[in-house]
């Protein structure tokens, strides 16, 4: 995602600059910008106009009257939670969205590094088999993963409750105890922390989904760390954990930071997982911005409000991207 607009070209910038003079450069751009002009940029502009109107179902027909301009009403209504949608809470949703993103990625990166380090231990048996298995969550479509986990969380017949009951039987715990309503339970499982059980269910599924990518990135970086560094540390008497903190981690950072940024943006927009697993429930407590935007269009047909909502999403994503890029750049240099 990092935008590097000033790539230096070969050793002769003048050479390529001269070539671009003939207009060839624009010629190659024309198809893309005609297509994007029609189906991307024009709709985006139109969407900004829509966000200032009360565009609704009644304006959809071709012969329907144009919608009324309503100024910033849509924007204000969203911020004031004044939308006639039960349990709609913009600020709550935004905080949940951010918390969801960061809690996931921190765990993904930490787990990814730990497993990569374990997997890269010299002399370990069956490395190839483990690698082949660990790639699986990456290659399966996310929507399928979400639907399968939703099925596993079924309170009556799902694999998770049945598995827990099976373990419980070994400790003489009645199986009824494990009638856990992973998705629908409204009471927060941990008193004092306003996170529903379905958040933890989503988190578990997304950890399953997310760590293997980080392990692959970390494995690539680990293999480029010279072994001599560890030998030197051994001779100096550094313990395993000391070596991990002062050699492995600092040298992994240049690879893990971009991967983490990529993970942040991806997790912030993880529509498919949330929509298919929890559906934003219970009581919209696990709704993220994108699932809500989809509901505004799909279920409420409030096109004007949805347009304003999407303009908010645009600025929030822009702010997030800029912030994250700043942090990335600030941590780019490192010392051993």
């Amino acid at each position, binding site marked *: 995602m990092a935008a590097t607009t000033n790539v230096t070209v070969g050793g002769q910038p003048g050479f390529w600059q001269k070539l671009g003079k003939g207009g060839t450069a624009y010629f190659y751009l024309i198809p893309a910008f005609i297509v994007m002009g029609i189906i991307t940029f024009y709709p985006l502009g139109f969407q900004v106009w829509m966000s200032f109107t009360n565009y609704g179902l009644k304006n959809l027909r071709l012969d329907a009257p144009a919608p009324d301009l309503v100024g910033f009403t849509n924007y204000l209504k969203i911020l004031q939670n004044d939308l006639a949608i039960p349990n709609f809470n913009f600020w709550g949703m935004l905080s949940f969205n951010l918390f969801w993103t960061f809690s996931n990625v921190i765990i993904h990166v930490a787990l990814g590094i730990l497993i990569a380090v374990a997997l890269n231990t010299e002399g370990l048996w069956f490395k190839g088999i483990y690698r082949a298995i660990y790639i699986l969550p990456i290659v399966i479509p996310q929507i399928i993963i979400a639907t399968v986990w939703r099925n596993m969380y079924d309170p009556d017949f799902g694999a998770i409750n049945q598995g827990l009951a099976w373990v419980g039987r070994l400790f003489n715990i009645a199986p009824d105890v494990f009638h856990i309503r992973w998705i629908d339970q409204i009471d927060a499982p941990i008193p004092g922390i306003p996170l529903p059980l379905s958040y933890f269910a989503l988190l578990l599924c997304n950890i*399953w989904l997310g760590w293997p990518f980080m392990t692959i990135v970390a494995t690539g970086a680990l293999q480029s760390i010279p072994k001599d560094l560890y030998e030197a540390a051994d001779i100096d008497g550094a313990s395993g954990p000391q070596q991990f903190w002062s050699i492995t981690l600092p040298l992994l950072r240049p690879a893990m930071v971009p991967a983490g940024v990529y993970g942040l943006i991806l997790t912030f927009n993880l529509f498919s997982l949330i929509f298919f697993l929890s559906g934003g429930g219970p009581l919209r407590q696990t709704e993220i911005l994108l699932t809500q935007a989809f509901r505004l269009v799909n279920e409420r047909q409030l096109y004007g409000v949805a347009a304003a909502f999407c303009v908010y999403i645009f600025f929030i994503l822009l702010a997030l991207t800029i912030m994250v890029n700043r942090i990335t750049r600030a941590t780019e240099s490192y010392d051993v």
Partner: protein
Amino acid sequence: MSSPTMSATGLVNRVSAQVSGSTASGRKLSLGKQLLLQAILLLVAFTVLFPLLWVVSLSLDPRNISRPTELRLIPPGASVRAYTAVIERPTNNKISFAGLAFNSFKLAAGTSVASVLIGVLAAYSFSRFRFRGREVLMLSVLTVLMLPSIATLPALYVLLNRVQFLNPQTGKMLFNLRDSLLGVGFAMTSGLLPFAIWNLKGFLDTIPRELEEAAIIDGASPNQVFIRIILPLAVPALAVTAFLGFMSGWTEFAISWQFLNQVKDHTLMMELYNMIGQYADNTPWSKFAAMSILVALPVSAVYLALQKYIVGGLTVGGVKG
């Protein structure tokens, strides 16, 4: 990806001079540590495999019950009856698996091929030429790349819905672009094209320029360079980008669900949602599981074969969901 800094290399040189003769075999894994690591990694492997085994087991359950009553990874008397049922007709909607798969394939292949063909031209321009307005145009591509496709859904829905053809005599609707696979394809391309441009530009940036410079000195035009040198070298990148586009089209849900009303246009993802959604209580889990596997298997197999080319490029390009 990472390279040690000057101080690190200095340290290495100093130390390797001291211990010349000692090799990598100096760090031997004790049996206890080996077993501990094996136990941990085996547990991780089990957690990775469990959901997959569960869904395979569900799909093979021969008992014609809607829900399994006990946790068994190999159900007694496994059968493929659920698969044949799904292939015939996944849900109550009158469309076969082949019909759904064909719709999904048309969308995925069409959008992916169109995006790659148009995208590689723009990527070549951004990667190789320096021209006025380059930064602004690249920034505009990056900005829409950042936006997930759902964030443009309201406008695309309203606008594509305006492209209608009515029968002038009866006033009956003949064609509505919004309610067609073509319209969904346009909406999906809107999100996919910026990704294709950016991803391909990332790849093209890594192709060394010496070859092209030599060709140009020999009198080749930029068009000849593009066709004779760039395109052949970019084939793997084109294939990977096309596949990632295909994968996102194959699993696209939000746009098709919002746009398409007619059952004949339904896609695999829409019917999968019908199997788990609000009114899905009657779908036996064996059918749901068989459907999941049939949808995932082809793309997963290709992804698995291509993964070593894909994963490295992902952090360069960035994908939208």
